[in-house]
């Protein structure tokens, strides 16, 4: 497998506060006259990238994720030779096409047709290539009737579609895409993702920066997490995305503190003191995704020995619908005695069948199978945020409009109905 991209100890520094240094020639001349050998004041610097190293083989589709300002776009720019490294080496094998902004090179006064040629030329396509693909490009963008109108009359959506249409018909060895899919309606996003899927199956190398985790997971074979100018993690999309998502939620406490909750009923001889979520890897988390496996740990404190308690929870939607009511009693687990003091018990969830939404917990501890909680009952004391995930491996983002729960499933469509599906996709 040949190597398409090799980045070695790449660092990129930006100089801030440009006003400190002379930006006007007359100022520079004056300062030269006054003190010919005095250097310009040391500028504030920002290291957008520090010591970044990684390699990409031909044919890999790499997703790059990270917070805003982490250095992702700078990395793409260096790979596209738009800006140059301050130190380190970058080598890219083959023709690179970058889509850092849609509609690069569009000129307002020229018509759609003329801009297709211009845009194509700027992105590196030869005139004949553009001509050969013109019809395909126009169909993809859906602007056939506006082809001879100046671009300045186009809506933003049309420009976006046109820009992406041209880029989608490039034939580069390496394609670098920066968050251009963030704009555009759902139908268009689907088209873009399909186009990129087509590139992947065509054996191209793709670098794809996005905040759309479902798309990254669906398209990419590998994922890089860039944080504060460095490669924080490099691995399979699912792992990296999960780790990344968890850092977001860490602004809040990972453990819900239940000790000070006031409106609770029950005798209090044993009561919940805390609740936390733990990932399958053993790390405390605050956010889970549809389909995840994780553990809920319930911390309690008992004043005196408690005989045959049962611990349970109720899960509610934001609207107040009861999703599920479960407990140790439901599982016919008998706990003979709980000694006084602090302790915990775990509930392991094998597969979270909940769709993305916010859910609330009510917790209770009672005696055996008693209907009314005897010892402790706290309502709506903790929340669970379930995040988007590629649940049906379709790349579609499904949220709470699709219901509360889902289940592993497959559609079986009889062959005759599927004939002609490929052609229909083309015509779209």
């Amino acid at each position, binding site marked *: 497998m040949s190597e398409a991209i090799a980045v070695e100890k790449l660092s990129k520094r*930006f*100089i801030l506060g*440009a006003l400190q240094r*002379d*930006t*006007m*020639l*007359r100022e*520079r001349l004056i300062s030269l006259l006054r003190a010919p050998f005095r250097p310009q004041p040391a500028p504030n610097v920002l290291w957008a990238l520090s010591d970044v190293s990684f390699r990409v083989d031909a044919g890999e589709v790499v997703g790059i994720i990270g917070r805003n300002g982490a250095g992702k776009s700078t990395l793409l*720019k260096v790979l*596209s*030779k*738009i*800006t*140059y490294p301050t130190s380190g080496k970058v080598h890219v094998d083959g023709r*690179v096409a*970058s889509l*850092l*902004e849609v509609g*690069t*090179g569009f*000129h307002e*006064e*020229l018509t759609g047709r*003329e801009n297709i*040629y*211009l845009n194509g*030329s*700027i*992105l*590196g396509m*030869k*005139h004949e290539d553009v001509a050969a693909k013109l019809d395909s490009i126009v169909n993809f963008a859906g602007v056939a009737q506006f082809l001879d109108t100046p671009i300045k009359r186009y809506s933003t959506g049309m420009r976006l579609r046109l820009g992406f249409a041209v880029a989608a018909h490039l034939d580069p060895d390496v394609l670098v895409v920066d968050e251009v899919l963030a704009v555009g309606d759902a139908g268009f996003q689907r088209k873009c993702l399909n186009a990129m899927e087509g590139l992947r199956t065509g054996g191209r190398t793709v670098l794809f920066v996005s905040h759309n985790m479902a798309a990254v997971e669906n398209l990419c074979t590998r994922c890089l997490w860039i944080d504060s100018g460095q490669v924080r993690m490099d691995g399979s999309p699912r792992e990296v995305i999960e780790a990344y998502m968890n850092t977001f939620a860490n602004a809040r406490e990972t453990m819900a503190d239940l000790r000070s909750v006031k409106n609770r009923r029950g005798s209090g001889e044993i009561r919940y003191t805390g609740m936390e979520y733990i990932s399958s890897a053993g790390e405390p988390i605050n956010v889970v995704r549809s389909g995840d496996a994780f553990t809920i740990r319930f911390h309690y404190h008992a004043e005196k020995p408690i005989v045959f308690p049962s611990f349970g929870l109720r899960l509610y939607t934001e609207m107040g619908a009861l999703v599920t009511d479960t407990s140790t009693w439901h599982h016919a687990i008998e706990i003979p005695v709980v000694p006084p003091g602090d302790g915990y018990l775990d509930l392991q969830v094998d597969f979270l069948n909940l769709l993305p939404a916010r859910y609330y917990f009510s917790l209770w501890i009672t005696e055996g199978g008693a209907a009314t909680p005897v010892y402790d009952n706290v309502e709506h004391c903790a929340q669970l945020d379930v995040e988007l995930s590629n649940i049906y491996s379709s790349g579609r983002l499904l949220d709470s409009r699709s219901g509360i729960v889902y289940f592993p499933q497959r559609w079986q469509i009889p062959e005759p109905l599927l004939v002609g599906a490929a052609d229909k996709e083309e015509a779209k």
Partner: protein
Amino acid sequence: MNSEWFVEFWRYRELLYFLAWRDVKVRYKQAALGASWAVIQPLLTMVIFTLFFGGLARVPSDGIPYPLFSFCALVPWTYFSTILGHAGNSLVSNAQLITKVYFPRVLLPAATVLSGLVDFLVGGVFLALMMIYYHVRPGWSLLLAPLFVVGMVVLAFSASMFLAALNVRYRDVKYALPFLVQIWLFVTPIIYPITFLTPKMRRLMVFNPMAGLLEGFRSSLLATRRMDWRLAGISAALTLILLVIGALYFRKTEKTFADIV
């Protein structure tokens, strides 16, 4: 200066034509007067010069009717000065492109230089008409005229590269430019013939490459005048030196464009 630069330039030549064509198209598309702007500017200037310099001040013009004398120099000069202005700003005004796409940046000033040739051609047509009107019969030296045109194009390109790169770093260059061009107009023998100057001043004239090229152009068209080969030769050499300097400076600062534009 390695060969890679030239190879890339050649590879992107289609884009060069496109950018030049884009400039031309936009200039001529919606402007009602369109092509005539290329002619009106030198024409009007010529009229004013004729009235004031030729008429009132009685500046001699080597035996050629003053309007023709000045127009002959004004057509290439208009090209040169317009190019300097546009190309000098070409990088900054295309900041959007430079920060988003890779292509050899030198294509931008080069495209301006190329698109200006269309204006030059239009002006040239009028010049030919004028020559016919004044019954000027050009000699074999007419064949030399394209050489001088090439020289002026190269000079314009060299200056453009240098100024465009400089303008990215120091933004006030584009304001100083019109002033510089004005001065350059007066130190070049456009309004007056070179014979108008004292021998001492004529010696200083060698430092102005435009002087030799313009004089040469004029002499080649209006065959009544003797060609000043020495001056033309020096100007050509200076032009080549400036080409190298301009290109080197551009190449040196090219890497920082996307960061500071």
